[in-house]
């Protein structure tokens, strides 16, 4: 069982992620924007973080950059969700320190596949 943080301003997307991951036996924490996500990541060590990029308050890119500065999250895999078909966004997120990505719309299967891939389970 892994401790996973999901950051998305869409409640339904968070719910879909939570259902899929908790069904696979993971513990899922949620945050509704980058600022809240950073807050949670500052205090709790997660095994993996899944985040949207396009969010109010603090966007995903900025949050990833900040999380990468946190000693507590050293090496924590960060997966970002993207609907952007252009490479630009993906490159920016990778440069910010993201581990990998998942293209929206995604199905539970692909989410679990990415999770397994990143967590090695």
């Amino acid at each position, binding site marked *: 069982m892994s401790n996973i943080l999901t950051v998305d*301003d*869409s*409640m*339904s*997307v968070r*719910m*879909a992620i939570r*259902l899929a991951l908790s069904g696979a036996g993971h513990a899922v924490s949620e945050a509704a924007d980058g600022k809240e996500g950073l807050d949670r990541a500052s205090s709790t060590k997660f095994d993996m973080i899944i985040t949207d990029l*396009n969010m109010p308050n603090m966007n995903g890119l900025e949050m990833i950059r900040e999380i*990468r500065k946190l000693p507590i999250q*050293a*090496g*924590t*895999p*960060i997966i970002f969700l993207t*609907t952007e*078909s*252009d490479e630009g966004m993906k490159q920016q997120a*990778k440069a910010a*320190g*993201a*581990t*990998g*990505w*998942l*293209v*929206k*719309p*995604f*199905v*539970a*299967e*692909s989410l679990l*596949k*990415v999770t397994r*891939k*990143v*967590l*090695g389970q």
Partner: protein
Amino acid sequence: MSGQDPIAAFRVEAGELLDATEQALLDLSHDLESRALIDTVFRGMHTLKGSGAMFGFDALAAFTHHCETTFDSVRKGLIPATAELVALTLAAMDHMRTLVDDRDGSSASAVGEDLLARLHALLGNAHASAATLSDGEEASRVGPAASCLGHQSWHVTFRLPSDALTNGTNPLILLDELRDLGGTNLAVDLSAVPPLDELDPTQCHLGWALDLPASVTREEIEDVFIFVIDDMELSIEAIGNQAEAVGTSGDALPASEDLPIKNSSQVVPVAEARGSPLSRPASESVRVPADRLDLLMDRVGELVIVQSRLAQLTSNGVSGPAGELALRSISEEVERLANELRDTMMVLRMVPIASLFGRFRRLVHDLARETGKSIELETDGESTEIDKTVSERLADPIVHLIRNSCDHGLETEEDRIAAGKSPSGRLRLSAQQAGGEVLITIEDDGRGISRERVRAKAEANGLIQPGQVLSDSELLQLIFQPGFSTASQITNLSGRGVGMDVVKRTIEGLRGNIDMTSEPGKGSVITLRIPLTLAIIDGLLVRVGNGKYVIPLAAVEECLELSLEEDIRSRGRSMIQLRERLVPFLRLRELFATGTRPDPYQKIVVIATGGERVGLVVDQIIGSHQTVIKSMSSLHRSIPSFSGATILGDGGVALILDVVQLVALGQSHEERLRAAG
């Protein structure tokens, strides 16, 4: 929260998103240059498309895509935002709402095609090519190409990007994956590892080489490295075949399967059921700020502590003055907590009235277009909070009142100029909290209500006798009488066949009341007074005969004593003098036919609503009482004078008096007396 169904959650969220985007569009119509608003609209469409596709709302995603593309062009400055574009996009948003309700969108595809045709016509041919789902998205769904066969095995060498470790890539997991694919002969390349004093332990300095069986496809190997493949060194050589260099690939995970989320047996409403954007179904979840939940948790925690104190006290035995004192302290504590819990619970149900007001901006926008009038809507006090259920039930009455104001109240531009007013009509919607009530006012600066026309109409409809003497407020109250509104008056706009009497009934059903003032030529003000919550009220507990009754405290003006002499003197008249005013009163003992003798010192509770006062004669005033309202059974619901019932501390039942009905009854008594001379 709406349970565990992401589709239901998506519907709620999509509704909110559409509301917010619509607000931005309406703001944009006043400020076509605003980048921030264009961005907001674009973002709204973008999110809607993305989440829509996730939950199988393909028709919605495909349709929204076009609007998103349009606003992307606006955002990039390729096309200007125009009033026509905003109006068309608003219409498109209505269609999106339909598609949110109706997932496959089959019932309204013609509407969608028509809207898209208009959108494309507006944009010209320049953007017609952007109409299909973008190529990138299509490409990501194409399955992997067939791999080349005919070789013995693969030899793979790779070196991860140096920041792979800090970016969360774990080489051990990649090696595990390669092992699972059948990797053998793993060798580590240490050549790039620097001397110890120069070593940065957060960097990845190692390289690896291994063999994989031919049964594995190239795509499967590349898939292992999917997240790092662009930035790493990777060579995949087919042994026993021509060596191949590796290009970049692996854009995304395949995402072509259908969503595994079941749509259960949800009844999907047909598109036809939603006439206007205002008939949105009430969402069943409430968003609660976390600090309010924390507060509730604190209270519950305190309750648990008090409970354990009580348990300890009872096990020690409550005896002697010390025990009694302890018990009393616990009782006081429980009382305080019950009050606080009640307040906290009520606050959880509160939503800002902004969500309600937000819908009316669109309504006024549409009404202005339909009537050709210029109307400015001002709103105020949007942060005022109100019970969620109350807020939902208020929507229809307020829609009706706004329609009335726009249709009958506000004049056309020419008429306004002729009357020396500003060309655009002003409609003001405001809310404020006053004690346990919320005051909502709908104010227009239109032509006001013509007393002559009201009188003529009321006489024609037989509501009053020709020439009957009425006070100004009585005359205005006629508007709220059933049968006042007639078909001849109903235009396209206010033509919902609903009269003001229905508005009044709905408001009264919420234990609120409606009041109207109007100055001919200057405008009208309608004030709604709505209790904050439906479930619990502060009441005044009284006794009449052997029965106990609750009078809503908000309606109570004062309590007086009715001395025996005054009682006898007033007999037959049933009026008391209260500071220069005669106030009619009702003897509840007689009204309820209790058959008991009156107490020697009876009390009068003066209640007021809508500016009218009535005294209620009771035997005893017991005191204020926290009243949890229970509705009457269907058998008893039709009895006027009572609006509900409550259970008292001793287990007895007290009926809650219906203030509005009783005041009306008192007034009619007064009128009868007046008529009798």
